């Protein structure tokens, strides 16, 4: 009874929330006074080093966001692999000999790799970019993993950590390069924007894929645990 | 900074530094700890004496800096501060000596002496505070530093007493803080000033001022153990004797009383307070406390509890004195600040001696103790007679001056209070004195210990005797310059002089 009432209450609250939100959106939509950011954006596109505005925003105008966002990804990855307190990620259960999956792998994996590469390359002037590419790469990894292909590099060893850190550290280095020249943090040296962005994008792709993959595979498999503070152990 | 600025800071820092050093020393460093303790106490006494001399000759000691926007931290030495500072410096030395002997071989001495010094530092701060804000700062510090002392024994009873103590004092502190903040928002940063700040206050704020005054007195009254805020004091008796001595004679209750003096004199001003109609009720309350606590003391069988109720009663004399709003009565109240301190510390030292040497805690166990411990008992007798107000001891001076003061402002009923209180005091002290001297020893003492030649450890023996002698001397020589009485007259002269 109480549960039902509770549910009703929450539901009503959520409906009300939606309604208020909708109303608010409606009001805002009917109130056209605002700054014109996209115009400013297009004015500055030429100085961004890339043609695709979204990429420009992501990797140039608001590159700090992106830097931190990669940081978030890395954190998730670190937290994830910290959970898997094992040296081996071999999961015997996963080692299937499903012929269909095997066939699928043989065809899909190269295809997806190519797709990832394309997305990455496209990022500069068309929709696409490191995230999408990384995601595809990660999906490929997942597929391989599901197919039981051993991926030794996913062991939480130095290699994995290097992989996690690679994209981020390159980005960070690029960010700090300009400081040596006396410029602001994250300001690309003049003329270097495009190549830098490309480099960053490519390593980011790798790192993103690594992180996602690591998170996917770092399912807990053993009982090692840290005692709580103060637990006599 | 000049020496004038440094001295108050120095006086404060000595005990603070002593406390820190003691905390840093290991528990077993008995000799070093004792020498730090005594050295600091002596040093502070010297500094205070220098300042007393200076203040007497009109030197302005003081230092201040802005702590918060609109709020300054002020340390300042005026005559009133020096009275309290002097008291605490003298009694700190004695109590330290006493405590060293009292706590011989007991655990947690480092903690004890550390907090002990901290407590004295707070007292010093209270004495030297130059405005309400600074006063409150040290007032709360005092609460905190006394708590570990109250619960020092760590028994269930001690812990319970500690809790009661905290509930009372922290609540009082909160009320006080509220009042101070309110006053501050009403009138800004008020430094203590002879004559106060509200002589011609805007009639619009009269109601607020009255309310604030009530809150201030309520907040301070907790520590001063004004009825009905006195409940913590008898309970806090579980603490070791030097602590009780300190709580009762110097630090806690005095801090409250001193605070009320400051509020009435240097914040509101006597004229303003009586014009607002605040002092008459205060005097009634004080008078009632005097009589009520004395009556309660009659029924106590535990020696220290009886002394505790006596304290409650005696501290209200101070408040009564200043609430009478006459210069002479004020002298009586102020001088009692010192007199009560000396006398009460004597009594507590003695109670501690009985407990530590003979294991006596209850009054009916005291029969014949005078023969076993004549020195202590003499001191106790002197203290008791002082409390009763028997001439020519310190207590008499208080009563006499306060009585004359009350008559001077046509408050004849105060005489009744004085007489009644003296009678009650006699009723609960004289039986003890009688037991000490004129009863035969009943049998073996509950827990007797022997120390060589003297009746008790020399650390315990001399301090009460010394304070007892002081009790006699400040009574007999009350009219000497620099005697408490003359000093109180000096304070009042400065307060009442335009």
């Amino acid at each position, binding site marked *: 009874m109480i549960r039902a009432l509770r549910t009703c209450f929450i539901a009503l609250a959520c409906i009300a929330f939606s309604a208020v939100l909708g109303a608010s959106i409606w009001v805002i939509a009917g109130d056209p006074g605002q700054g014109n950011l996209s115009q400013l954006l297009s004015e500055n596109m030429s100085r961004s080093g890339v043609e695709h505005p979204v990429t420009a925003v992501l990797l140039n105008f608001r590159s700090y966001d992106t830097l931190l966002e990669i940081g978030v990804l890395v954190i998730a990855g670190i937290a994830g692999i910290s959970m898997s307190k094992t040296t081996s990620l071999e999961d015997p259960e996963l080692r299937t000999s499903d012929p269909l999956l095997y066939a699928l792998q043989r065809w899909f994996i190269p295809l997806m790799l190519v797709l990832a590469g394309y997305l990455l390359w496209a990022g500069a002037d068309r*929709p696409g970019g490191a995230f999408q590419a990384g995601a595809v790469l990660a*999906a490929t990894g997942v597929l391989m993993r599901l197919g039981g292909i051993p991926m030794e590099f996913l062991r939480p060893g130095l290699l994995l950590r290097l992989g996690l850190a690679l994209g981020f550290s390159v980005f960070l280095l690029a960010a700090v390069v300009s400081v040596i020249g006396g410029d602001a943090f994250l300001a690309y040296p003049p003329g270097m924007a495009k190549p830098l962005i490309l480099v960053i994008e490519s390593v980011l792709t790798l790192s993103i894929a690594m992180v996602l993959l690591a998170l*996917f595979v770092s*399912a807990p498999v053993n009982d090692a645990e840290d005692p709580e503070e103060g637990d006599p152990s | 900074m000049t020496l004038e600025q440094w001295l108050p800071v120095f006086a404060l820092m000595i005990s603070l530094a002593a406390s820190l050093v003691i905390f840093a020393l290991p528990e077993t460093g008995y000799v070093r700890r004792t020498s730090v303790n005594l050295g600091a106490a002596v040093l502070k006494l010297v500094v205070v004496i220098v300042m007393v001399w200076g203040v007497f000759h009109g030197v302005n000691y003081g230092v201040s800096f802005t702590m918060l926007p609109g709020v300054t931290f002020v340390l300042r030495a005026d005559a009133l501060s020096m009275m309290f500072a002097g008291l605490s410096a003298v009694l700190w030395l004695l109590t330290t000596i006493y405590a060293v002997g009292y706590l011989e071989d007991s655990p947690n001495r480092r903690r004890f002496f550390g907090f002990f010094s901290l407590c004295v530092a707070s007292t010093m701060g209270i004495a030297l505070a130059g405005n309400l804000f600074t006063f409150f700062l040290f007032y709360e510090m005092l609460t905190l530093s006394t708590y570990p002392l109250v619960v020092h024994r760590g028994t269930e009873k001690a812990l319970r007493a500690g809790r009661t103590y905290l509930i009372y004092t922290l609540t009082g502190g909160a009320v006080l803080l509220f009042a101070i903040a309110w006053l501050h928002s009403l009138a800004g940063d008020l430094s203590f000033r002879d004559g106060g700040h509200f002589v011609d206050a805007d009639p619009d704020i009269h109601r607020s001022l009255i309310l604030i005054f009530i809150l201030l007195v309520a907040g301070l009254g907790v520590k001063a153990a004004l009825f009905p805020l006195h409940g913590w004091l008898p309970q806090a008796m579980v603490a070791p004797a030097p602590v009780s001595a300190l709580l009762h004679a110097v630090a806690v209750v005095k801090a409250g009383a001193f605070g009320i003096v400051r509020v009435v004199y240097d914040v509101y001003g006597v004229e303003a307070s009586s014009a607002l109609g605040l002092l008459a009720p205060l005097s009634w309350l004080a008078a009632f406390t005097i009589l009520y606590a004395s009556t309660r003391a009659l029924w106590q069988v535990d020696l220290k509890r009886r002394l505790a109720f006596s304290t409650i009663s005696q501290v209200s004399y101070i408040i009564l004195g200043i609430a009478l709003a006459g210069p002479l009565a004020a002298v009586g109240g102020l001088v009692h600040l010192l007199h009560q301190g000396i006398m009460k510390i004597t009594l507590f030292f003695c109670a501690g001696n009985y407990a530590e040497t003979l294991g006596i805690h209850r009054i009916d166990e005291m029969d014949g103790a005078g023969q076993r411990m004549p020195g202590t008992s003499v001191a106790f007798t002197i203290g008791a007679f002082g409390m009763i107000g028997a001439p020519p001891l310190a207590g008499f001076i208080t009563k006499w001056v306060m009585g004359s003061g009350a008559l001077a402002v046509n408050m004849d009923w105060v005489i009744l209070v004085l007489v009644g209180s003296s009678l009650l005091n006699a009723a609960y002290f004289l039986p003890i004195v009688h037991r000490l001297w004129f009863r035969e020893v009943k049998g073996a003492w509950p827990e007797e210990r022997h120390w060589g030649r003297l009746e008790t450890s020399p650390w315990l023996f001399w301090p009460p005797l010394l304070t007892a002698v002081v009790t006699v001397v400040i009574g007999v020589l009350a009219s000497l310059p620099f005697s408490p009485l003359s000093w109180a007259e000096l304070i009042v002269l400065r307060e009442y002089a335009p």
Partner: protein
Amino acid sequence: MTDWLLDGLLVFALLATAASALLSRDLFRAVVVFIAFGLLMAVAWVRLQAPDIALAEAAIGAGLTGVLLLDAVSHLGNKRQTALRQTRGSHRQGSDQS
């Protein structure tokens, strides 16, 4: 008009899949519906002229999240199993008892 119809349908489908993903009794089905929701979102992003997001949504939202969740579901099972295994759970409540 067809655009509106399409948008309307899409929105409706989005809401429907969202709701059923949450309310579906079977966790596995819920995740599958959620993947469908992700794909629909990708379409919606296309409709909003945000191809980048569409791509990302398809790859990340629908693809990766889906796989992750499916994997998790297959390990966790759903409610009934949970109840069975609850007995061996070390059930120490260190939290807010209010």
